[in-house]
């Protein structure tokens, strides 16, 4: 992330609210979501940074890897002291891309597809494609 956002815009937060019903402005950045996230170590943005960017209206969050690595384990959601369903916020951010028909998984190009049980393939297809 190169440049700082100089102009704060509520547009992204409005879109997230429309899809997920979650109000990101309730978040006071305590960081509990990032502390508990089992995949945070592998993310380019910590979960609390993802939500911060949405608060600021920084659309570059949509280009992050973090939102695609989130495996919907709901750890952040059960721990959030502000009762924000961050898992649903992550889903809303993914849907902003997926609903344009841009997918993050090409089902024809999965390596060793025969190794995986259908439960893994269908779950991945549901979360990473339209």
């Amino acid at each position, binding site marked *: 992330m190169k440049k700082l956002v100089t102009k704060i815009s509520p547009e992204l937060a409005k879109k997230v609210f*429309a*899809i*997920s*019903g979650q109000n990101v402005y309730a978040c006071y950045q305590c960081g509990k979501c990032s502390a508990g996230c*089992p*995949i945070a*170590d*592998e993310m380019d943005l910590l979960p609390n940074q993802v939500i911060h960017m949405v608060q600021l209206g920084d659309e570059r969050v949509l280009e992050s890897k973090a939102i695609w*690595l989130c*495996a*919907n*384990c*709901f*750890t952040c*959601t*059960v721990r959030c002291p502000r009762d924000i*369903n961050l*898992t*649903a916020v992550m*889903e*809303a951010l993914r*849907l902003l891309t997926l609903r344009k028909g841009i997918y*993050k*998984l090409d089902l024809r190009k*999965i390596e060793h597809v025969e*190794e*995986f*049980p*259908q*439960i*893994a*393939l*269908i*779950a*991945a297809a*549901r*979360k*990473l494609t339209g």
Partner: protein
Amino acid sequence: MKLLYFPGCSLKNYAQRYEKSALAVAKRFDIELVELKRWNCCGVVYSLASDSVFHHIAAVRNLIRAQEQMHETGNEKLVTLCSMCYQVLASVNHRLARDPEALETLNRFMDEEEDYLGTIEVLHFLQVLRDYIGFHKIKESLERKLENIRVAPYYGCMLVRPKEVAIDDPEDPSLLETLIASVGAKPIEYPFRTDCCGSYNVVANKDIVKIRVLRIIKPLLRNSADLIISVCPLCTFNLEYGMKLASRELYGKSIPVLYFTELLAYALGLDYALDKNVLATLNKLYEGGEK
């Protein structure tokens, strides 16, 4: 007692062991799990978009199938084994109970099916063990007391989160520990029993699963766990797959992953319902423990 049963894809393919052992355990306690005559994929992952109900259609169809067949059991309960199926069906049910507009939209979409009334109760088999059979009853019915077997309970995510559909405390569950203790075995304490296995990342980012599994398994090796018991076909796959990916980091060591129903079936002497390799693993541990 009869209860309707929704298997889901894994139980008929990758996780047949899970179904076979669970049906045998239920039968042992006079519970007949009646498989739905017609069922389809549950959707695997619950859609979190509150502006759309499109992704709930598959789950609702299954709930309607249960509604159509509930006269056979005389109750409105639907039992699942796969924890992902449980979470999807229970979450969709939870949403529709609170969102009459969504229920109406979905009902309007169904052509051949009757309307879903929203009254089916989705249960996981662990709840059946706890609430309809009782752990004391299991204790009284043991054919083998599995003393000295050290068992790590692995809950994963879907049965304990989110709160709305959790069957146990999201931060400090105890169902599996109680189950392990009721067959006489020793439940192992470790920090990652409700941590995510990496889930569907295994398809596109398998290194995530490797990292997750290393984290979960390492304290278990140090604590000399004999077995891990799982509630989920995807957790089971990922734990086994992850241990293979990380075999160098784990110095070639691994821990067998069983479904909780297999441990239970073994303790109850239901060997006929166990996979050959699973039976061999358990026999070895049991006989080793007797010395």
